[in-house]
């Protein structure tokens, strides 16, 4: 990709495991273990995988809410992985996050107007009157009435709260929004409203999204490209249609075959994976997926597979994937 908005290379987030008595380091959780990603302007990259695969930690490290222990994060051409708080401040305006749980991510003691004005106060933007006008405009943008500003989060439903969370993320006119399971806590009929809202905002404002989700059907409606993570590593990256209809990594294939389809009697021959995801504190040697992989060979237990480009924009980290 020429001139991506965000380019992440070799990102690592390792957490120490310390013994409770002497505080000695007794191990390492490799939550994110060498992740490469690119996001273009106005594009949606979906980051998918099961619990514990490191997708949320990757998102938080990109936002520098967690410090990466290695690798590079280039945003708008500038390396920010090692920036301290003052040099990060301008980047905080350009990248925002929408959280999964609309009940836990809004301060219950603040009015919605106060929540939405806070970003302007923190970044010292505008007069009080300007801020009022901007808050009203934000509410209108996400489909809420201006009176909502005087009310408290508990007075709203889950879907409305998620709209408030999106309005807050939009306040500083960011270029990139990371959505961490933004519709997972919502009912199906409300989910569609929020997905449509996010797509409309993207079209109007040229926003780039990183959508972190375990819901592959939702992802198939919002993503331009998809990266699949397993145990801290990206195992496959591809354009949306390729990933859903021509996946090459055995884990991606198993994940897709596990998605239940809302059509009775069209149940596909399912590859049910055996066992559980191993602990990221003790990942298997070689390919992390090899103990559960239906086609694993002896070399998979020894050598880490590096991402291989099999088609333009399609990379697979598997020794055995057909080119």
């Amino acid at each position, binding site marked *: 990709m020429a001139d991506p908005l965000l380019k992440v290379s070799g990102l690592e987030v390792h957490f120490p495991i310390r013994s409770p008595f002497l505080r000695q380091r007794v191990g390492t959780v490799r939550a994110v273990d060498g992740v490469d990603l690119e996001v273009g302007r106005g594009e949606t990259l979906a980051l998918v995988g099961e619990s514990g695969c490191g997708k949320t930690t990757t998102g938080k490290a990109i936002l520098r809410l967690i410090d990466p222990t290695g690798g590079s994060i280039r945003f708008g051409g500038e390396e920010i992985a090692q920036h301290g708080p003052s040099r990060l401040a301008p980047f905080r305006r350009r990248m925002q996050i929408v959280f999964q749980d609309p009940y836990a991510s809004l301060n219950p003691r603040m009015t919605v107007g106060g929540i939405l004005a806070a970003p302007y106060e923190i970044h010292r933007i505008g007069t009080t009157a300007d801020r009022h006008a901007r808050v009203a405009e934000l509410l209108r943008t996400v489909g809420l009435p201006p009176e909502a500003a005087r009310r408290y989060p508990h007075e709203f*439903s889950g879907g409305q709260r998620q709209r408030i969370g999106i309005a807050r993320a939009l306040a500083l006119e960011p270029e990139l929004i990371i959505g961490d399971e933004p519709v997972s806590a919502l009912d*199906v*009929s409300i989910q*569609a409203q929020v997905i*449509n809202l996010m797509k409309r905002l993207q079209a109007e404002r040229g926003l780039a999204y990183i959508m972190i989700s375990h819901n592959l059907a939702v992802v*198939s409606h919002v993503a331009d490209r998809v990266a699949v993570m397993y145990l801290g590593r990206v195992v496959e990256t591809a354009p949306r249609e390729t990933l859903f209809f021509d996946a090459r990594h055995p884990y991606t294939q198993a994940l897709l075959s*596990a998605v*239940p*389809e809302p059509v009775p009697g069209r149940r596909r021959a399912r590859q049910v994976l055996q066992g559980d995801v191993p602990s990221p504190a003790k990942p298997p040697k070689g390919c992390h997926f090899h103990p559960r992989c239906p086609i694993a060979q002896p070399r998979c237990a020894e050598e880490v597979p590096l991402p291989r480009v099999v088609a333009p924009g399609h990379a697979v980290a598997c020794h055995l994937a057909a080119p």
Partner: protein
Amino acid sequence: MSAAASLPDETGAAAAEAPLLSVRDLTLHIPVPPHVLRAVDGVSFDLRRGETLGLVGESGSGKTLTALMLMRLLEPPLAALPKGEVLLDGTDLMALDEKRMSALRGRTVSMVFQEPMTSLNPVMTVGRQIAEPLVRHLGLSSREAAARAEEMLRLVHIPDPARVARAYPHLLSGGMRQRAMIAIALACRPAVLVADEPTTALDVTVQAQILELLAELQREMGSAILLITHDLAVIAETAHRVAVMYAGRIVEEAPVAALFAAPRHPYTRGLLASIPKIERVPAPTLPEIPGMVPGAGDRPRGCAFMPRCARAVSGCAAEPPPLAETDPGHRVACWNPANG
């Protein structure tokens, strides 16, 4: 306790016989002065041997409360409020005293909960939790029960069952805990299993394992399953029949193929349309149901879906529509149902 206490070993050719479980006009109105919350409002359905009925609905639709009433698990002060009948092979569970009910619970009717971590006892080994109902209900000795517990763990495909039987729940992964809970619920081979969002807290690959397991155990034991979920895709793959709940009532009930192919209630149609599906060329926008579910305290007098309904007609505001049969086995509660 009549015939309800045991399950016949043969399961085939059962669909035509009388229902095993018959729920009639189940109601839970909670007085919260000056309002009355109509949490569950006259729910009726039948469940036959070897059958899976999916009970689907969004948050607040009353599906979990329906299950808790049926299991007689509501706690005081709510415990005194339910009205209606739950006939299990002719015995009305609602009329039993707690002593007789607890003799059935875990033996003839059993329940699997959404959150295995909060439903398992953290200070008792998994093996003892499975053995407990066997000792209590079937009078097995503790040695026999321990052996049966290991066998149950093997049955739910837990590797190394002897080791897991001695383990405490926190040592197990989410998927393993859910398997352990299924082992507890099925230990006495119950005639009816109520599963409330049994896979919602799990990853898709583990969900696939658990759903296969439930189907396999059902074939083996012939239990009837009431599967409660918000996920229509899970219903499509596992249920024989579906009942859709909205605002405390069943709005549509049909065999699974008919419900998905020819839904007639506008809410069911909206719900099915709004599920994202994996397609080569997705529609630019997903169909939405406008508005939101009304709270249990401020439901309209007539049809509760009317304020969000595109097919509403003048009569909808006056009276809630009754659940009426439109085709054999297909019931719809709507004054202006769509053609299937």
